[in-house]
């Protein structure tokens, strides 16, 4: 099979890190990523495993940070090298189904007991299983040497990870299901602050900073599943602003103007760099030092900042967080959600509905062949300024797939 593979070569990570500010193509070319032809992953000796052939696989910000050598060393012990990236996958399963991949490598696929009946792969409050069972360590497919990843013509996946795609859903919609699930998870994570506002008789205000694919999916999630909120979005580029509006944002401003826009909506004063009040909750879909600091500044005391964008090492003055008793929480992935009406839903089910109803296929801006990965990664790294949102690999016409189908 053909695959893009990341190896644990410290020098190559260093080169990628050095080159990425100048050239993503250079980072891809000389960094830890390489295009290889090799055998498909071996199936574990366990029930429920399938071979799947990706049709489309997205390029995520977390993938890019790996390729560019910016990922945190936190992951060193939670992943296993070498691995094939790619976790936003719509694929053909060996049993004939068209599926989207829920990439978390949870208890079920590792042959471990579920934390509770009906648990999704992302559920459970002890992450020991991520480095145990009959797979090598890996938080999800795309970071585990055992399973392969979506940037390849083939990988393996467990029944617990697979969701059949309705016939009415296009591949382009389906490839957005995973990011949509992440956005919806973040949107639902604002609920405690939103609920408190509603109980006080206030109109809940949620700000979203950043309108790349994750920010846009969070906006869609808020509008669909936390419909009471007034959504204010800071988006850097005009096409992002237009998407934000079309997905249900009430107010959309350039990212640099978000703090003042929040004040205009929420009232209160600006005291120094902080709002005296602010929005009830904020979703940071950027994940940089600056973005987190900004969110802390315009989220009201005892409000909630949901960190959706994957950060690395950041530098923050947390005095304001301490003084304002702000909750700063992460929103990594998906699982079983507690909905505002008290019911339980699986995030991926919500995401499949959302991807179809919101026609998230419009966020797919360009598709590339796997061979053309350097240009694809460069496009993804510069998506905003190039008027794009989601860049994907299109593997439907790949040589390996054709060869297999011919055979």
């Amino acid at each position, binding site marked *: 099979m053909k695959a893009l593979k990341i190896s644990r070569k410290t020098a190559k990570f260093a080169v990628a890190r050095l080159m990425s500010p100048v050239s993503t193509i250079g980072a891809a070319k000389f960094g830890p990523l390489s295009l290889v032809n090799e055998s498909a992953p071996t199936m574990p000796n366990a029930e429920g495993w399938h071979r799947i052939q990706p049709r489309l696989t997205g390029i995520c910000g977390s993938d890019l940070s790996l390729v560019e050598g910016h990922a945190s060393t936190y992951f060193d012990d939670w992943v296993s090298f070498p691995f094939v990236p790619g976790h936003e996958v719509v694929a053909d399963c060996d049993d004939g189904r068209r599926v989207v991949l829920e990439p978390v490598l949870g208890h079920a696929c590792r042959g471990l007991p579920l934390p509770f009946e009906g648990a999704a792969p992302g559920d459970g409050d002890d992450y020991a299983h991520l480095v145990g069972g009959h797979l090598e360590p890996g938080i999800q497919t795309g970071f585990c040497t055992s399973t392969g990843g979506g940037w390849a013509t083939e990988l393996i996946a467990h029944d617990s990870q697979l969701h059949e795609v309705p016939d009415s859903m296009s591949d382009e919609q389906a490839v957005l299901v995973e990011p949509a699930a992440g956005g919806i998870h973040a949107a639902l994570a604002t609920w405690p602050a939103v609920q408190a506002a509603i109980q006080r008789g206030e109109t809940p205000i949620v700000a979203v900073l950043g309108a790349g694919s994750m920010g846009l999916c969070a906006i869609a999630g808020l509008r669909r599943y936390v419909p009471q909120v007034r959504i204010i979005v800071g988006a850097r580029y005009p096409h992002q602003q237009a998407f934000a509006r079309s997905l249900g944002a009430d107010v959309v401003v350039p990212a640099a103007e978000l703090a003042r826009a929040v004040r205009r909506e929420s009232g209160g*004063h600006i005291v120094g760099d902080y709002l005296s009040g602010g929005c009830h909750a904020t979703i940071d879909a950027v994940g940089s030092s600056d973005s987190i600091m900004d969110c802390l500044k315009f989220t009201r005391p005892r409000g909630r900042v949901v960190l959706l964008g994957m950060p690395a090492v950041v530098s923050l003055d947390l005095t304001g967080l301490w003084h304002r008793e702000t909750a700063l929480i992460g929103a990594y992935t998906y699982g079983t959600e507690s909905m505002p009406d008290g019911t339980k839903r699986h995030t991926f089910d919500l995401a499949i509905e959302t991807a179809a109803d919101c026609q998230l296929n419009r966020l797919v801006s360009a598709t590339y062949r796997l061979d053309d990965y350097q240009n694809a990664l460069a496009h993804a790294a510069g998506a905003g300024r190039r008027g794009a949102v989601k860049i994907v690999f299109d593997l439907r016409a790949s040589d390996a797939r054709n060869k297999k189908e011919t055979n």
Partner: protein
Amino acid sequence: MPRPGFVLEVDKSTPPILFWRGENFSLEKLPAGRSRVIYAPEPLPAIEDVDGAIRHALLNPIEQDPLPEQLFPGMKLTIAFDDVSLPLPKMQRPDIRQRVIEAVLDMAAEAGVDDVHIISALALHRRMTEAELRHAVGDRVYDAFAPRGTLYQHDAEDPENLSYLGTTPHGEDVEINKRAAESDLLVYVNINLVAMDGGWKSTATGLSSYKSLRHHHNPETMIHSRSFMDQHRSELHKSNWRMGKVLLDSGVKVFQIETTLNTDTFPSPFGFLAKREWEWKPSDRMTFLASTKALNRTPTRLARKIFHSIEAPHQMTSVQAGDVEAVHRITTEHVYKQQLVEVKGQTDILTLGIPYISPYNVHSILNPILVMCMGLGYYFNMYKGMPLVREGGVIIMTHPTQPDFHPVHHPSYIDFFEQVLADTTDPKVMSQKWEKQYAEDEWYKHLYRTTYAYHGVHPFYMWYWGSHALQHCSRIIIVGGDPKTVRRLGFVPASTMDDALEIASDVVGRAPTITHLHAPPLMVADVS
């Protein structure tokens, strides 16, 4: 003998014309045979004995008793004065307000009046700093009154200190400063820089609140003021005069003191700015070249500081006191005598060099909204009869128009730029959709009352100021402005004057007639 204003018909021998560009200037060659330049009259001679003239005016007022006869022990006397928004640039010390206030206080002291309050009539403008107050009223007055709390600034958001006096027949609310309304005599000390200043505008606007101001600071009034400088055709003027009648009927007794200044605007190093270009001497050319080259290399912040430190050698040309309306009639004559220039007919294009200063950015930044106000609100309206540019014509302004705002002075301007102008540039739409929110914003009120911020609604007023020009012209072009900012204003950016004329040709053809208003110094074109 000063020369009157002058209209130069541009021919091939005409040198390039000076255009202001914020904190810099440029020379622009205007097309020969179809361009004209309007120069202000030269400064009129100053009154030599200023203090004597002031005393004479107070002792021989128009249609009122002499001031000493209106003063008595135990009375409440309030002296209100024009704020930092004029004159422009600030005048060299002693400021004329200081000299008038000192004369009034001398007479009050002689009459045994000891309940005297001095109030800066700033309406919804920003509060003046101590240095600015000292400059306006002088150290002696400041030190005698400010520490005792009897020299202070009008607060249009202090309901405890406002008096509601009723409505005009047009239903306009009249609310002014309580101390002024309840005084036995209100002495108003004015500087009349342009024809729309003074008269009932001093009290009915300067000492009023949003509740009153909204009745004439709105798009409807502004569109129907043709122009602000022509009292008989100004709805703004008429509304203020109606409110003045309510003041009179409510028993508010006003002793109006109005002064006029000549147009001696720039001190000697910058003298070339007021000269006619063909009369520039080699030293003027050298100064121009040295200034522009130096300013090109000077950080904007420093350049602003340099320009705002300029103190104008303005001199007083008249002072009259007494009845508000009678005084103002004479004042207006003096203003016209200094500023009126006869001009025949309109042109397709009006060009304006926008300087670094306006009434609303003293010691501050001429932000994009104020650029608009300066060009379309002030310069466009410097006419009697009809505008210098024909209906459907084009205005070309030169200014850097950067998205720079003074965060202390103009906080609501930032939001106005980011929120309101992103939504609409139509004065009527914004007045209905957004004005109330800004006028009632508690943070803006807090900043207006406790810091040095213009009131939250002020950027709307600045935009309304240009309502008539927006309606009258088919295109507004800014040469040298930041393109993104210029577009946010709803205007068209151009990199050079030639580009601007090319852009304008879509609307006015390839051989348009052009008028350049060579201001400052200020002038009013009497267009027939």
